[in-house]
């Protein structure tokens, strides 16, 4: 294989590596946004919570002779608990009394609370996490593709398909969609609004725990603020893909990962050094803006144009 090509393919996989993590996180955003129209700013911080649980439980699990990734189970439990508590204690009362702007501020406040709470408990310093997977990388001649990357992508796809099927075909899934559209009418159909929303949060937070496992597999370090930028990028991914759309979250995440990686790799050469890889964040947002202007509902989003 020609070395340029190897380089290009490796860059694609570099993008898929972070992109698949974004996808997993974006799925959580999309689930929650889809149903209560709330940008759950604290979602990124759920990932941080999951990562701390992994950090604390992984050594014990390894000591018990089990593979480290089993630690994802306590992580899911704790994340679901945190997600449900946040929903019940903060989002629900605000949803009942306030408006969408109030809810957004509450989400931001929850995010601050989790970050500073984690700092108070664990300290601000970074902590490394033991290796969770030891999957050998796959080699094609000069091309090395990390096993974690492939696992994350596959896992993301499986979760996406599973969620999509769940939401489309099961009764609970349909209830979620109904609640997302019209709460009163859902009540009249006999849907229990609160338990449906709680379930959505539970799923979203559980996904955050899975995402945190895949994240620390690739980036083995935790800190109280680790979720902030990750959450933002993943949210951008969800919007790019079409927020509320489950396949959209997946596509958005992978797209953002690819854009990041390819701009870091090639933008300097393409623009003869005028724009450097330092602009990669700006370019990601630039592309988001262009996509939204061309297709305001995102890549996979349904046009919700109001009928007059």
């Amino acid at each position, binding site marked *: 294989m020609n070395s340029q090509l190897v380089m290009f393919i490796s860059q694609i996989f570099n993008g898929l590596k972070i992109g698949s993590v974004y996808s997993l996180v974006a799925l959580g955003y999309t689930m929650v*946004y889809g149903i209560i*129209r709330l*940008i759950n700013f604290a979602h990124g911080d759920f990932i941080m919570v999951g990562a701390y649980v992994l950090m604390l439980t992984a050594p014990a699990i390894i000591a018990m002779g089990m593979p480290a990734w089993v630690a994802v189970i306590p992580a899911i439990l704790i994340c679901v608990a945190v997600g449900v508590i946040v929903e019940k204690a*903060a989002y629900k*009362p*605000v949803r009942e*009394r*306030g*408006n*969408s*702007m*109030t*809810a*957004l*501020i*509450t989400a*931001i*406040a*929850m995010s*601050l*609370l989790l*970050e*500073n*709470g984690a700092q*108070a408990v664990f300290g601000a310093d970074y902590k490394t996490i033991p290796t969770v997977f030891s999957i050998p990388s796959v080699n094609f001649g000069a091309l090395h593709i990390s096993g974690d990357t492939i696992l994350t992508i596959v896992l993301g796809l499986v979760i996406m398909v599973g969620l999509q099927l769940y939401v489309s075909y099961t009764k609970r899934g349909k209830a979620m969609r109904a609640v997302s559209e019209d*709460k*009163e009418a859902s009540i009249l159909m006999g849907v229990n609004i609160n338990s449906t929303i709680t379930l959505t949060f539970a799923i979203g937070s559980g996904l955050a725990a899975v995402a945190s496992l895949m994240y620390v597999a690739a980036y083995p370090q935790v800190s109280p603020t680790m979720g902030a930028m990750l959450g*933002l990028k993943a*949210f*951008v991914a969800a*919007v790019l893909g079409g*927020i509320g759309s489950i396949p959209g979250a997946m596509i958005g995440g992978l797209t953002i990962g690819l854009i990041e990686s390819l701009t870091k790799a090639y933008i300097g050469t393409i623009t003869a050094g005028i724009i*450097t890889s*330092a*602009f990669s*964040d*700006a370019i990601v*947002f*630039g592309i*988001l*803006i262009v996509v*939204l*202007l061309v297709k*305001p509902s995102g890549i996979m989003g349904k046009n919700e144009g*109001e*009928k*007059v």
Partner: protein
Amino acid sequence: MKKSILSTKQSYLVCALGVLALFLLVMAVCETGLASPYIKGIMMTACIAVIMTTSLNLTIGVLGQLTLGCCGFQAIGAYTAALLSKLIVAQGIAMSDMSRFLITIVAGGAMACIFGVIVGVPALRLHGDYLAIITLGFGEIIRVIIQNLKFAGGIGLSKGQQGQALIGIDRLANLYVVFWITVLTVAFLFMFGRSRYGRAVKAIRDDEIAASASGLNTTYLKVLVFAISAFFAGVAGGIFAQYIGSLNPAMAGWLNSINYVIMVVFGGMGSITGSIVSAIGLTILPELLRAFSDYRMLVYSVALVLVMIFRPQGIFGSWEFSLSKFINHLFYRGNGPKRGRAAVAVEGTASTDGVASTEDNATPDTAAGADDVSRLQDGVIASAGIAGTGEGSAGVGPDPNAPRDGGAMQEGDDRR
């Protein structure tokens, strides 16, 4: 019908006197040394926050569009002002500090305004969370660009260093001048809001389709509002640069913008006086919380959640504090203003305007004479910088899921 004892002109006068009194108070504490540099610094920061918050409220509260990029414009204004100020000195152009300060902040505002238009024209085709995310994106792009400009780092201009904080900006901001700039900003926003422009903007917030079907050029108006907000954010940035003396690109980041959004929502969307109070309050609050040192941000975030739960419409709701009305109230207490008149006028009647409905015209039988129109428009004067407290009646945000959720069941909303 309750008659105001103050004519429009008188209420303007009352308000002007109120502002003047406040200014004299500020001057008194400064000149006598009662105010430490610490206090003065906080007053300066509060003024900047008031300019940012009231102007952002125009976009968020009055136009009803959530933007998360206000600090991008603030940063543009700040860098423009700082670099221009340095340029003036470098070119050896002689002018007084005061005129240099004023020229540079206006230039900062103008530059931010230009960018506001450039960003607003495409962005405002989107709504709600999409607009939020797109403006957030613009803020981040501005941050990255400034970060990579060679002349905007280090000591700047030709000797600049990429990636460094911009330092050595002459600290020309004078509290008295900044005070008056803040007053002018608030006055401008108030007058704008109580004119045909303000009405049009509120109409767009309530129903954009109906607004265009009423002959409003909604695109133009939205961009206009955006540009005005950007202008004042730029002015605030220019003041900030020349108060703090150094700048770094991180100021354009979305986390800072969110701070101002919090101030707007906290104060009450659409309420200028609410914004003023909350900008000042939330500037002072973290300082008061210094006592909690390590747990400061924890306390802050818990406090924020509690306010959102127990006072979701913000401290003022959509209500405006008015000095003249307050005075009116003092004089009329004996007569007992008629509360809860006709069924239609009670509760929820607090219109976004807080003027027409809560003032004289709330009574169905108002045969509002020509004389009343002035009061209708201006009976309430937001007295700049005067913190007042009071209960606003339940204001309803521009969101269709607002507390009146049952209302969604009424026809007219069915296809939403």
